[in-house]
């Protein structure tokens, strides 16, 4: 605390300057106090963010984040923290409905996080020594006020709609083409074998590298973004459909024929449903990639869309604006995932519960 007040007295300059000033004024060498030395240590990463002024605020934010992570992630492994976990679960006991209780837990987790973020951005005290600079990190209220601003101006609707439109169309087209291609190549074995290395090679091209050419070919409108999304979704659904169809147990198909099915019936009644889990995995993985494609295109060249909005705001150092864009994207992905999960739950209702849940968890990593 003493260091801080010392530093306050030396005016509006940074900590290292403060030490030098002391030297010059007194004309003799003074051993700097421990706090002063600590403040001069450049921390790795982005030094400006963590420098003296905001040290305590940053520390608070860091500790909160670390604390949250310890509780939620490592809670399972460490006995002491397991105790915290049990305490948490006991605190909520008065809520009888299990789903409601989980909702309350999650809401308080989110609320607590947002509150810490907001508080650490507040300028408490004589100077900002208890805060992280909202210039770099924004704050929930700033994000909200920017949201209100763009809602009132109407630009949020244009941007969100544009990105959703590009991603959705790209997804539908890519998935349809991918599944169709999967079906065709699963049938034409020789062609599939000829094309195999080319498909792998083309899929290996990073889409960021393709984006400039696509912009030249398809312009800066929605088309180039749709094509980018298609190029990502197509391969994912194709690969999954193809290997799913090829992996169907031939005995299942043979038996259907013995029981009187013709070739079309075998395809529709046996092969397709048997490959459905793979096809759906492809469709699920494809969702975030469709949005990645759209955003990538918008980063390259665009005049509207959330990707454009994020880039535009960050160019203006409007961090709150960028966060607003990220949050909107998050919601789009959440909604799209929910839709695909519903589709999966309906189409794969015949699967054992545990198996379905396991697969869902694996794809959510993407």
């Amino acid at each position, binding site marked *: 605390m003493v260091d801080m007040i010392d530093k306050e007295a030396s005016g509006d300059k940074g900590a290292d300057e403060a030490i030098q000033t002391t030297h010059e004024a007194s004309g003799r060498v003074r051993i700097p106090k421990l706090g002063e030395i600590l403040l001069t240590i450049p921390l790795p990463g982005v030094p400006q963010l963590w420098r003296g002024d905001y040290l305590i605020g940053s520390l608070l934010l860091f500790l909160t984040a670390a604390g949250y992570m310890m509780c939620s992630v490592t809670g399972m492994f460490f006995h002491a923290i397991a105790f915290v976990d049990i305490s948490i679960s006991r605190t909520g006991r008065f809520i009888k409905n299990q789903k409601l209780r989980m909702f309350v837990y999650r809401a308080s987790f989110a609320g607590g996080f947002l509150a810490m973020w907001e508080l650490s951005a507040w300028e408490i005290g004589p100077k900002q020594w208890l805060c992280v600079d909202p210039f770099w990190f924004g704050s929930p209220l700033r994000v909200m006020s920017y949201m209100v601003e763009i809602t009132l101006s109407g630009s949020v609707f244009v941007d969100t709609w544009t990105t959703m439109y590009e991603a959705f169309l790209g997804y539908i087209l890519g998935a349809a083409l991918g599944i169709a291609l999967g079906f065709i190549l699963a049938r034409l074995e020789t062609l599939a074998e000829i094309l195999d290395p080319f498909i792998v090679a083309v899929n290996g091209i990073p889409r960021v590298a393709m984006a400039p050419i696509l912009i030249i070919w398809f312009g800066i409108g929605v088309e180039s973004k749709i094509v980018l999304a298609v190029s990502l979704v197509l391969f994912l659904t194709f690969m999954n459909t193809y290997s799913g169809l090829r992996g169907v147990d031939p005995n299942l198909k043979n038996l259907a024929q*013995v029981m009187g099915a013709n070739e079309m019936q075998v395809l529709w009644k046996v092969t397709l449903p048997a490959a459905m889990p793979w096809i759906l995995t492809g469709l699920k993985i494809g969702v975030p990639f469709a949005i990645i494609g759209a955003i990538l295109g918008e980063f390259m060249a665009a005049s509207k869309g959330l990707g454009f909005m994020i880039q535009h705001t960050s160019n203006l150092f409007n961090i709150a604006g960028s966060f607003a864009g990220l949050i909107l994207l998050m919601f789009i992905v959440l909604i799209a995932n929910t839709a695909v999960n519903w589709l999966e739950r309906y189409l794969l209702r*015949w699967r054992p519960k545990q198996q379905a849940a396991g697969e869902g968890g694996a794809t959510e990593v993407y």
Partner: protein
Amino acid sequence: MPPILSIKNLHKEFFSRGNRVIAVDDMSLEIEDGEFITIVGPSGCGKSTLLNCIIGLVHPTSGTITYKDKKLHGINTDIGYVPQSDYLYAWRTLINNVAFPLEMRGVDQKTRHEKARELIQRVGLAGFEDHYPHELSGGMRQRANIIRTLIYDPEVILMDEPFGPLDAQTRIILQDQLLKLWREARKTVIFITHDLVEAIALADRVVVMTSRPGKLRSVTEVDIPRPRDVFTIHSKEEFRQTYDQLWQELREEVQRSEDWMKNGSAS
């Protein structure tokens, strides 16, 4: 009466890692209409290949199979096939699995469900119509596997060790049910098994195949009057005699198969 199915000089070989493997060699057999035939033999003697040739999933290298005086070409849908493990369709409920062959034949849903429900009831699966296969026990699935073949009334039914993976109690109960179903429907059944007791209890004639290459070793009539009681048949004198005789033959073949495998792995 002419045989419903006659196999003449059937020969099937295939290549595996550059080696010529003879699965079935010079096999001839005539099967009468309504007969229950069981085939026993050491493992790997080509029993399954023989069945696959009869349904038409595998083309014989030489020799002919005649069904009702017609030479077989491709898959014969008059012949039903009950595979070793139940290949029930995991995405179909029990009733839709059982009704599958009728659905393929364009029978409308009401009729095919009625028929399926009747069969499901007969094997004691009533109440499980809307369950998916993973919700059924092994024995239940195997029952469904069998009635799925019975529902479309094929003239001949081939069964490839249908009770192999089941526990002993379930096996006997299912053998009993199978005999009842067979008595009512009077189908021709060709039944592959490892279990000599099962082979004798069920069959009119027991076919013993030799170890590799699979040839016909002997055909034995089982003189035990029907209807048989599979639960007590072991104590009958005729059963014991047939069992001893067949076991003698089978043991030689199993021994030969063992030696062959030892030599095979040594060379």
